[in-house]
């Protein structure tokens, strides 16, 4: 497959002609080109993110002013906000779809789909993905899944409303909640398509990375982004199918009258015939994906920021090997920690103790990554591009959100914090905000590569500060609500005396959320305006080392006009002493950088060492 792509593009460029101009449909819609598919993923992801963000503003309004009427809501939402007040069931739909869309459609497909597609062929030096057709299929399955998910707002009984974790029996019994009728069916169908899309994508990413690296690009010369996408794809391939099995069994329970998850139910006075199933089974299957999922979400973000932080600190990433090993550690451990979501569900308490041990172990590689980021910044020469600001924001969120994981991973402390706002604060910081910041960091950094134009930096800074401060104002206070015992997914705090004091805090949070949401307009304007009117980008705007910046600004089929460059060095030769510039791209051979080569650069190649020693002797350079 790969050879055909290469020969095809070679022919194409030899003839210097555009004699087989691609039709509009082949170029922009059913495109097999990884760059176009990346853009499709990104724009779909942005649209879904705006959609999910609007949902969150709606339920934030309800939480801040539970007794107030907003007639305008009725204009838009009709019967779901009769009299200008959101109904409790619709509130649950809002939180459910907000969670589902953000976790899966934005932070999995929008993040990994965009940047894996864009950067894998570019950074490893390949003409395209291993299978462009599967790549296209992956996007279109994702697109159909998105449409179905959004369409669930247009069915009479409303969208799914059992929480993004869709625990049965609530999600299995339509009489328990209106959202578990057609809305839930659509949710399940959408997720099956989504998982298919992720699997096809993941297989493609892994095979591309393993088989199609350019000459000289061995695994230890790959940028950390590629390592992150590679391991993410592996995690996804191993865990997403389990979600499908969970979903399929749930579909059987709903449609065929089986009892995988159902037993001993009397819903609304009706004795159901199901016997012998266990709701806990679903939780095990769900979280077997669900926990790796948070690493699927956060690892690409960490990969992107590793690259951006190194580039903009003008300094090699500190502890490249440690970064890779901690990613591998996270990958392996992520499969044996899912039980920490189930400490108080009635899982055997001894098993809970075991999961607690594995959970706290996974904090070690995460801590190593955070410290390595700090060490990379130390004594750097830091350039604050908007992308770099978002990368710093990610490090901040990753630390502040990760630390609260020590509470929740501890089974004894989790008794009191489980399903409270503390959990909401924790995961919104560590996987929500951190991953979104990783994604935005990637958009600002690779925008010139994607669209050939630059984004407006001033709007970028405005966007960063509004979002960064907004996110902290929204999520930091929630920790304290959780410690006080306020449960998540509550429609209003009005019925409990001890929650009364949090209503004013909720107003602060909602205002922060609204302002941060409006701040996204700065990004949207910037993004779409710059596609057409942005400043033309230079070839390597950030003086970066990785291969994607050796391609021409104008996108061409096959990425490089001539031969694919050969890789000679690791991607982090920034500010190497003895070299004139503060960066040396990966495709620059050591023979051109005699004045800056270090002994370990040659990896034991005696011939090269001898030549270097000779050169050093002639030029009076101490090695």
């Amino acid at each position, binding site marked *: 497959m790969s050879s055909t792509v290469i020969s095809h593009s070679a022919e194409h460029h030899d003839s210097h002609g555009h004699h087989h101009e691609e039709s509009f449909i082949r170029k922009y819609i059913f495109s097999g080109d990884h760059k176009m598919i990346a853009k499709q993923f990104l724009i779909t992801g942005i649209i879904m993110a705006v959609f999910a963000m609007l949902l969150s503003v709606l339920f934030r309004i309800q939480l801040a002013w539970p007794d107030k009427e907003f007639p305008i809501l009725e204009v838009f939402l009709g019967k779901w906000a009769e009299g200008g007040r959101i109904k409790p069931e619709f509130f649950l739909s809002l939180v459910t779809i907000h969670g589902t869309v953000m976790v899966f459609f934005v932070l999995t497909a929008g993040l990994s789909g965009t940047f894996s597609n864009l950067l894998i062929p570019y950074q490893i030096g390949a003409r395209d993905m291993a299978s462009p057709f599967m790549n296209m299929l992956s996007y279109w399955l994702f697109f159909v899944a998105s449409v179905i998910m959004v369409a669930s707002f247009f069915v009479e009984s409303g969208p799914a409303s059992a929480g993004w974790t869709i625990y049965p*029996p609530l999600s299995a019994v339509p009489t328990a909640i209106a959202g578990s009728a057609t809305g839930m069916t659509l949710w399940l169908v959408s997720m099956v398509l989504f998982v298919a899309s992720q699997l096809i994508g993941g297989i493609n990413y892994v095979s591309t990375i393993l088989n199609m690296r350019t000459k000289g690009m061995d695994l230890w010369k790959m940028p950390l982004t590629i390592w992150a996408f590679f391991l993410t794809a592996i995690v996804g391939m191993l865990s997403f199918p389990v979600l499908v099995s969970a979903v399929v069994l749930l579909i059987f329970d709903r449609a065929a009258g089986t009892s995988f998850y159902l037993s001993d139910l009397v819903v609304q006075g009706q004795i159901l015939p199901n016997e012998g199933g266990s709701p806990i089974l679903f939780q095990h299957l769900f979280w077997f994906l669900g926990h790796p999922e948070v690493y699927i979400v956060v690892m690409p973000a960490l990969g992107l920021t590793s690259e951006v932080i190194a580039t903009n600190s003008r300094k090699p990433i500190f502890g490249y090997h440690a970064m890779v090993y901690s990613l591998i550690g996270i990958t392996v451990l992520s499969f044996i920690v899912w039980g920490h979501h189930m400490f108080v569900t009635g899982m055997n308490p001894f098993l809970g103790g075991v999961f607690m041990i594995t959970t706290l172990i996974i904090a070690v590689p995460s801590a190593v990554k955070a410290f390595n980021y700090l060490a990379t910044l130390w004594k750097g020469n830091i350039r604050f591009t908007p992308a770099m600001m978002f990368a710093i924001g990610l490090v901040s969120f990753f630390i502040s959100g990760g630390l609260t994981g020590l509470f929740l991973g501890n089974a004894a402390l989790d008794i009191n914090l489980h399903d409270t706002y503390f959990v909401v604060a924790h995961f919104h910081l560590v996987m929500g905000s951190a991953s979104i910041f990783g994604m935005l960091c990637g958009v600002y950094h690779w925008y010139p590569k994607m669209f050939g134009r630059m984004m407006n930096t001033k709007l970028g800074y405005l966007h960063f500060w509004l979002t960064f401060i907004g996110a902290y104002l929204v999520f930091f206070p929630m920790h304290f609500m959780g410690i006080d015992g306020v449960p998540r997914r509550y429609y209003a705090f009005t019925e409990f005396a001890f929650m009364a004091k949090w209503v004013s805090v909720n107003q602060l949070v909602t205002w922060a959320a609204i302002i941060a949401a409006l701040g996204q307009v700065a990004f949207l304007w910037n993004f779409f305006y710059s596609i057409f009117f942005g400043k033309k980008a230079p070839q390597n705007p950030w003086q970066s080392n990785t291969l994607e910046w050796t391609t021409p600004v104008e996108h061409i089929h096959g990425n490089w006009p001539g031969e694919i460059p050969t890789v000679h060095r690791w991607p982090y030769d920034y500010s190497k002493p003895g070299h004139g510039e503060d960066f040396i791209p990966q495709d620059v051979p050591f023979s051109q950088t005699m004045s800056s080569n270090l002994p370990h650069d040659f990896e034991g190649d005696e011939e090269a060492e001898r030549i270097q020693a000779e050169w050093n002797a002639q030029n009076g350079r101490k090695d």
Partner: protein
Amino acid sequence: MSFKLNNRFKSISGFVLALGLLFANPILASQQDTVASDSAKVATTAVAAPAATDSVAKDTTAAAGTAAVASASSTTEAGAAAPAVEEVKQIDPQVYKNFTYYVLLFLVICTVIAVIGKVLSIYELTRKMNGRYNPFANNTFQSALLFIFLVVFLYGVYWSYVHWGAAYWRSAVTEHGERIDTMFIITTAITTFVLVITHILLMTFTFLYRMRAKRQAYYYPHNNAIEKLWTIVPAVVLTVLVLFGFFTWRSITNVPEDLQKSALQIEVLGEQFQWNVRYPGTDGVIGKRNYKMTTPTNPYGIDFNDKNSWDDIQGSEIWLPVNKPVRFHIVSKDIIHSFFIPDFRVQINAVPGMTNYFQFTPTVTTEEMRDRLGDYNYDFVMLCNKICGSAHWNMQKKVVVVTEEKYKEWLAKQNKYFTEDLQKEFSGKTANVKKDSVQVTASLN
């Protein structure tokens, strides 16, 4: 090209600004409108109120014979009022206007931001023309902002710890809860220390090492000793936390069997959207429950063929004797709920098809807690903490901890589940049920 573009941009932004100014007056006008409509509403309610008092007056002055007629008239009045209310409910055009004003207001803000952006770039251009442009000015500015953010952030953390953390903190009122609290405080201390240190490092590094003209970054790809250090230190700290947590967790969940049996047994059944509490009665044993026996008269589904259930008591609230171990049996009738008492540090899910247990010993009575907090309306509360449907947010049960005597007093006043109606029903049924059960077992065989 770019000059043209700028011109166009200016004209567009000028137009939007003009539009915004044009609507600035209507914003004021709308405020007046809303005031007017508010007063109109007041007027209508004022009109309605005398009418109501009128009808009341009619009722009271009317003779007993005409009372029926009067009430009938009042119902017709109510009937007439209903459509009027619906008319009011129809969306006021003012709503659309207000919405448009807010959109315009936002556009005006955008325009102002765009103008500021233009002014800044003009300033930069003039600096460039004068040859005094510092390409690192913005870089330094952003690093300074990050440093200011650090100061504000740390103060914010401190402020929220004091005002939201310490001020609202309520210590646990159970034996195991005190151990959880200790661990919570230790974990908070460790994590806060790390949070503060790492953020100070992060945002002073970004300030200290911001890009400058003649600097070069320090080429420092790795240092195995440091990396080992910061792998091992977190690992050790985590090991301590893990061991501490593991043993606490085991001590809470792994109660020896004799202590399990000697504790007071209480069963709690969750359903949409209420909790049902069952005390075992004098025999100390909770009778069996069989969901298939759920009927309108026996909504709990208690199996009254089991004689242990005959004396089971229906608790209107959860009352507990202080300093006595109590073992909760948590079950669910329909979907998953979660039995959560924040003050007790107690939580376990109610899962249909299985029973979960949580054993603990309350150490503080409600009255003592009220004294402690200085809030004489304070009550412990048990709430549902697993999404369970539209009224999930208001599924609570009061929990009261009292002395042994008061507890017994209260328990004596509670009703039994096995009401007279049910007794009749079951005495009639028992024969049939026995036959049925024989048949069932036969068919199973």
